[in-house]
């Protein structure tokens, strides 16, 4: 890190020297329309390389060579202006609004730049600077709330994982995520260098994505990277940030009761004393005589990974460590709450995210070279990542006809200790430990020293000294090792090297025709390992994994463009060949390691597990497009594509699909004063069809390799029935919309309505397993997806000193299962514990939650299985869809003089998810919910025989009345799990995601430094979960493991940082 900074400053220094100039021009740029200063206007020397941009006050200062005479001013939405430099060296200009502002260009399918007004479908764009407000590290979360119809499927902010997004809800029976394209090359979102992003276009529906074919069914994220400028001066952009990250959200833990099982009993019995302490009972036959003095000491159920024990009132008791031989042996300690124990485990995460880019060009050449380093440590001890990215793009006009271009990026990334997520029995998810299975009185600082003097491990979760005096037995951990042992000794490392790039030729045949051809590659190579150390509960093991997946695309298009009078005609025909290859090799020791902590596959005690996965696929395509325009008023597009996919049955592997779309710019017809109100208006409509295929090797019934028995190979028939004759699936989509802007574009609306019918989908439908198969692959069904999207953009305030612009997005989408197949009306999407599952049922919205409900008798009384008070329940109850009602967001940027404030918010209403963390957290007495008083005014956790317990009333199955007090654990653990609604949580949220407050350092302060611009800012990422029903349970619904469930959700974190952007 230090080295990097040093080299950056060295670069800065060289830059200052290199660009020393001879005279300085200063001036102010304003808008002619209102006379207000324009910030960010590009000012360049004509024919030279020097340039700058205006500050927030519209002022600029530029040193130019003595020979230069003309400056060029360019600003989006305004006409480019050239002005000669007067001898005074003072040049004030006012720019004129470009009437064709609305012909703003936008990048669409296959990298084609189009005039926005000509599009017959919805495309939304976000500029790079609005994406990286708080230096968000992945594209998906940076898009949250900024595009209508994009639902964030986040991942916990305390991991390295990328988020995902769903565009326009769910179009099929399963969820799919969009395709990411960087400068025309399909890639992974992790490969994108965020500081390089010029803009992102989100192509949402089939009409927009038709030219990408089948794999764009879930939408396309088209990323355009920054390029060098042909006319610009060489530019160096430095973007430095460092930030700190801390836990921002945890479940509400209770801090009154210690670990144990006593609140599971109705009376103290002979096991517990009246306060719920477990008692040590000396037995001469079992224990050493020296322990006789311990008789009747208060202990707790150390082996319990639950907190149903005694109240923490400072009473003396034997903590677990007083049973380990050593100085603490036999000591009593006072039982006191440890409200910060979980926070004490986590650390403050640190990250440094620095980039530098050099760009420029001349008449024939453009180039941009960039480097980014990201180094981050998580709040989880020992977890860190270091990533380097180098990117280059450039173009060279060899002659007036032929241009070559390239765009390449290389990423190398080293990760250690990626946190384990989800519900596991291996004890590797420490958050699961803390929020589901823990004892609240534990002092984290004691757990930190997990090694005994003899090198063996210790654990808080030991056995019962009552049963034996043999430490080798009672010190045996029951379920959990120390979380520090897990974090420090049981972890994986992962190295990824990725390359994405292309080389392209463009040959201009004449004014009408040109040919372009590209070869594009996307290579991902990775290797990793995972260690489970000796001494813990887990069988020690070592696993290595190598993977590689590559995609190649070869494409060629013939493009044409011709205008006749009022008519324009353009389009292309082309072809593409795509190959995908993936392979993965996994090796894992089994049965332990031959020597302690000898991490090698050869250390496997028994035959190591080894697995190779390989897949290959090729899709060949031809496609074409024709666009027709009449005046600047009427536009019509048509596309046609045919694919041949290797993954489909040979007889059915070719499929053709069209799209048509139209745009009518009705504001062209408006005349006179109304144009002052409606400055732009457009109607659009589109129809599209998209075909889709399969993953490789899914045509015929699979053979599942089994586990060899000795020398007998074992294999079985796969569980999916396949006919071998499946057809490509088709999606039909209709989309209509309008874009209207008012008051000289101060406010604009973009409204879209769409209906997609996914017909004849290739479904793995659930069938009765008694048929011999659990699913059947067939073409059937109709999943209808419809919804509407609204984007509002506006500039509420714009005056000399203050500019406030704002964008609001809102989307409502509904996916309805219209039909499945003959005789089948249910598709099982997913299952979880306790009879919970997600089904897609005919006639219902996508994603019905199915679960348990308490049984009620005819009078509506709660039924218990007996007078002991265990709840009776029914299964197969429909508890509503897990999909949200609507989603949206708000993006704001304000600037006042040199100060700028940017923030983004996003929200979701409705939807629900099933929480195992809440289920076990409540069930094991960890959460605040489990500390309550009953109607007698006594703690529920007190023994019912002493006046505690949870009051329940109802009837038994035979109708006998039940009116009793049951032990708290029975209520919260056993009965709780019999009502799924207890753990089905509303996923609504409103969140302030990112905030940045910046200050543009005035040129006057920069003195003689040759710096074009400098902005320093403070930023907060994941700033504030303003409101969410899930918040009190410790969840941010925008960060769930899986949007409909979580099994051991990792914590949310908030990041504070400093950011410095310098342009040279």
């Amino acid at each position: 890190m230090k080295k990097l900074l040093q080299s950056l400053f060295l670069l800065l220094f060289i830059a200052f020297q290199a660009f020393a100039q001879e005279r300085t021009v200063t001036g102010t740029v304003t808008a002619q329309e209102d006379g207000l200063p324009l910030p960010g206007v590009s000012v360049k020397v004509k024919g030279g390389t020097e340039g700058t941009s205006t500050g927030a006050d519209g002022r600029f200062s530029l040193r130019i060579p003595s020979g230069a005479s003309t400056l060029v001013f360019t600003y989006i939405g305004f006409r480019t202006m050239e002005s000669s430099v007067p001898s005074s060296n003072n040049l004030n200009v006012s720019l004129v609004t470009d009437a064709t502002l609305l012909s703003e260009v936008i990048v669409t399918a296959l990298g084609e730049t189009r005039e926005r007004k000509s599009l017959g479908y919805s495309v939304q764009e976000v500029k790079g600077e609005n994406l990286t407000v708080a230096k968000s590290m992945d594209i998906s979360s940076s898009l949250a709330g900024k595009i209508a119809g994009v639902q964030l499927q986040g991942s916990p902010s305390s991991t390295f994982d990328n988020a995902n997004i769903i565009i326009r809800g769910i179009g099929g029976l399963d969820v799919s995520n969009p395709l990411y394209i960087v400068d025309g090359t399909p890639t992974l979102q992790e490969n994108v260098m965020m500081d390089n992003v010029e803009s992102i276009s989100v192509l949402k529906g089939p009409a927009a994505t038709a030219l990408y074919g089948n794999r764009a069914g879930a939408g396309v994220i088209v990323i355009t990277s920054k390029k060098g400028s042909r006319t610009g001066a060489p530019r160096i952009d430095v973007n430095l940030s460092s930030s700190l990250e801390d836990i921002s959200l945890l479940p509400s833990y209770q801090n009154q009761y210690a670990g144990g099982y006593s609140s599971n009993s109705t009376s103290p019995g002979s096991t517990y004393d009246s306060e719920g302490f477990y008692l040590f009972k000396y037995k001469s036959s079992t224990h050493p005589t020296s322990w006789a003095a311990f008789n009747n000491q208060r202990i707790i159920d150390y082996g319990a990974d639950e907190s149903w024990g005694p109240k923490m009132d400072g009473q003396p008791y034997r903590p677990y460590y007083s049973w380990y031989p050593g100085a603490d042996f036999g000591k009593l300690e006072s039982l006191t709450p440890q409200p910060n124990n979980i926070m004490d485990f986590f650390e403050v995460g640190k990250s440094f995210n620095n980039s530098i880019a050099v760009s420029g060009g001349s008449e024939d050449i453009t180039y941009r070279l960039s480097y980014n380093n990201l180094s981050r440590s998580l709040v989880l001890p020992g977890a860190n990542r270091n990533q380097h990215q180098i990117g280059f793009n450039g173009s060279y006009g060899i002659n007036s006809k032929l241009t070559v271009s390239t765009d390449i990026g290389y990423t190398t990334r080293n990760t250690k200790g990626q946190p384990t997520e989800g519900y596991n029995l291996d004890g590797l998810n420490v958050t699961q430990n803390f929020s589901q299975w823990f004892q609240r009185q534990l002092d984290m600082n004691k757990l930190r020293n997990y090694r005994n003097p003899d090198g063996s491990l210790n654990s808080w979760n030991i056995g019962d000294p009552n049963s034996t005096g043999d430490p080798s037995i009672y010190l045996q951990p029951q379920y959990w090792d120390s979380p520090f042992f897990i974090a420090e000794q049981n972890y994986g490392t992962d190295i990824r090297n990725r390359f994405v790039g292309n080389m392209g030729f463009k040959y201009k045949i004449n004014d009408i025709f040109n040919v372009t051809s590209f070869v594009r590659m996307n290579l991902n190579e990775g290797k990793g390992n995972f260690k489970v150390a000796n001494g813990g509960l887990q069988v020690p093991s070592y696993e290595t994994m190598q993977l590689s997946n590559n995609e190649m695309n070869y494409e060629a298009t013939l493009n044409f463009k011709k205008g006749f009078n009022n008519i324009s005609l353009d389009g292309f025909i082309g072809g593409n060949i795509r190959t995908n290859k993936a392979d993965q090799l996994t090796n894992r020791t089994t049965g332990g390691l031959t020597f302690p902590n000898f991490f090698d596959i050869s250390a496997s005690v028994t035959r190591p597990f080894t697995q190779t996965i390989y897949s290959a696929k090729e899709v060949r395509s031809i496609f074409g497009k024709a666009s027709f325009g009449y005046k600047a008023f009427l536009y019509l597009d048509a596309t046609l594509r045919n694919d041949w996919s290797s993954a489909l049955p040979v007889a059915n592997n070719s499929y053709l699909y069209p799209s048509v779309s139209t745009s009518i710019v009705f504001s062209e017809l408006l005349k006179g004063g109304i144009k002052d109100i409606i400055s732009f208006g457009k109607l659009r409509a589109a129809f599209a069809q998209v075909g889709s295929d399969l993953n490789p090797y899914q045509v015929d019934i699979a053979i599942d390799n089994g586990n060899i028995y000795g020398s007998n190979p074992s294999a079985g028939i796969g569980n999916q029935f396949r006919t071998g004759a499946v057809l490509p699936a088709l999606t039909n989509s209709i989309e209509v919309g309008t874009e209207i802007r008012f008051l000289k574009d101060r406010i604009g609306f973009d409204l879209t309505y769409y209906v997609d019918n996914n017909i004849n989908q290739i479904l793995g439908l659930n069938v009765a397993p008694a048929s011999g198969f659990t699913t059947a692959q067939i073409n059937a069904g109709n999943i209808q997806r419809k919804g509407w999207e609204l984007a509002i953009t506006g500039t509420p305030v714009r005056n000399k000193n203050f500019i406030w612009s704002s964008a609001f997005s809102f989307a409502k989408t509904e996916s309805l299962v219209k039909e499945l197949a003959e005789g089948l009306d249910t598709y099982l999407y997913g299952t979880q514990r306790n009879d919970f599952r997600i089904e897609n049922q005919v006639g219902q919205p996508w994603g019905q939650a199915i679960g348990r409900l308490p049984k009620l008798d005819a009078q509506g009384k709660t039924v218990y299985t007996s007078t002991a008070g265990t709840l009776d329940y029914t299964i197969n109850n429909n508890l509503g869809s897990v999909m949200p009602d609507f989603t949206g967001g708000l993006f704001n940027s304000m600037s006042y003089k040199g100060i700028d404030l940017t923030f983004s918010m996003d929200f979701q209403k409705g939807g629900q998810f099933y929480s195992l963390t809440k289920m076990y957290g409540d069930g094991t007495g960890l959460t605040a919910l489990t500390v309550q008083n009953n109607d007698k005014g006594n703690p529920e956790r007190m023994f019912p025989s002493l006046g505690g317990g949870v009051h329940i009333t109802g009837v038994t199955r035979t109708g006998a009345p039940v009116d009793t007090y049951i032990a708290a654990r029975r209520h919260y653990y056993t009965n709780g799990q019999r009502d799924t609604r207890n753990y089905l949580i509303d996923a609504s949220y409103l969140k302030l995601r990112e905030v940045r407050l910046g200050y543009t350092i005035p040129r006057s302060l920069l003195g003689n430094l040759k710096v074009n611009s400098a902005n320093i800012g403070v930023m907060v990422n994941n700033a504030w979960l303003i409101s969410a029903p899930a918040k009190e349970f410790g969840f941010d619904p925008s960060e769930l493991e899986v949007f409909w469930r979580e099994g051991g959700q990792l914590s949310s974190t908030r990041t504070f940082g400093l950011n410095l952007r310098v342009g040279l």
Partner: protein
Amino acid sequence: MKKILGLFIGCAMLFSACNPGDFGDINVNPTAVSSVPNSALLTNSLQQLPGTAFPGTAGNRHSADMYVQYISEGPYPGSSLYSDQNFDWSLHYTGPLYNLQTIIANANSGSPLAEAGVNGSKDNQVAVARILKAYFFWWLTDRYGDIPYSEALKGDGNFSPKYDAQKDIYYDLFKELKEAAAQIKTGEVGVKGDQFLDGDMAQWKKFANTTRLLMSLRLMKNDNAKGKAEMADAITSGVISSNAENVFYRFLSSDPNNFNPWYDNYTTSLRNDYAISTVMTSYMAPKNDLRLPVYGEVLSGRVVGLDYGLNTAKNIPGAYSRIGDKFRGAGSPALVYSYAQVLFTFAEAAKQGWIAGGDALASTHYANAIKASLETYGVYSAPTYATYMGNADVTYNAATALEQIMTQKWVHLYLNGFEAWSDWRRTGFPMLTPAINGNIPTIPRRMGYPTNEKSINGKSYTEAVARQGADNLTTRIWWDK
């Protein structure tokens, strides 16, 4: 320009001419076998066999061990409180049953996958597959009652097979087992891929006949005539006749993929959730039953049982005896059928008058069964056996003989919960007290159909429930009525 356009169209034509839909063998997975011979299907099917007689914890099948109170639960009482109501069966239909069906289809169609040299003679392949199929179906119907049978395993021929009445299933299974045993050609090459009986076709015959013997007893309550006839025929055909013929499924201590399921549970997955129950220890310990230290872990010189059927959470290691090492070593075998089991069956049949001999013979079979059991668990010696038989409630007593036989059989069948549970359902022995904190006040008499059957095979499910009774744990299946 025209030239260029022409060239481009030419290229496009060339592209189509070379058949863009021809991808060679790209879509053939190089890391999966493309076809599977019958021997490998048999190996695969047999890997599910121990789950029936030695269930382990997969799929909550340990519930059967709980119903007969062999084991108790420590920290998370659930199955022992009858909290599981619905049990999945897809593993068995889509796994062994469909694989066995495929073996038969391959052999009958003369497929190269059934080639005799590497799979055994055709008749032997078919016979073994039929026997095992019948065995799995028998085990399934005993759990649920009516199940899909005659219309099952037909793939796209029927994705929503009807449930057959259990009586019809039983009758057909008797026929299948008899025919299949008759189809065995001991003179021809035995089946290959058989890690269970090593292709010993004579043993397969005995396995089929023993299955029929045990099945016939199930009809004690409801269909005496058929039960008696099948029993007589099974005995005549030849059943297991010595401890040397006991059938075990051998797990492989050297291979984690073939470990004993209790080893997986205790040692690999570190679940110390189960201990031997006080129901077992309080019956066995006072009689100085030498099998007890085999059945349960010895802690400080004794086997400590865990109370059964309570809702209280207890930690087990060190405090209560986990199941014994002989049952939970990585390579500890699963006992599927034993000579003792056959002798107990004879004793019961003699006592009930299904076979000749009355009390006299019942008593002999009973005594021999206990001896065979002690031998099976490696704790037989003449003097200790004599002492043991001298225990007041062990010594054969004509008045309480059925209870004695069934209770001793239950002791012998330790951890084969399904078989002991069926015996209990038929006879009510051993005398068991339902779990005190159980979800239902009685011991379950069947298992509920898989949770999602109602949605994916609704019509058949509804029909079966209408015929058999509510889909819960207490409805009695046909032979239990």
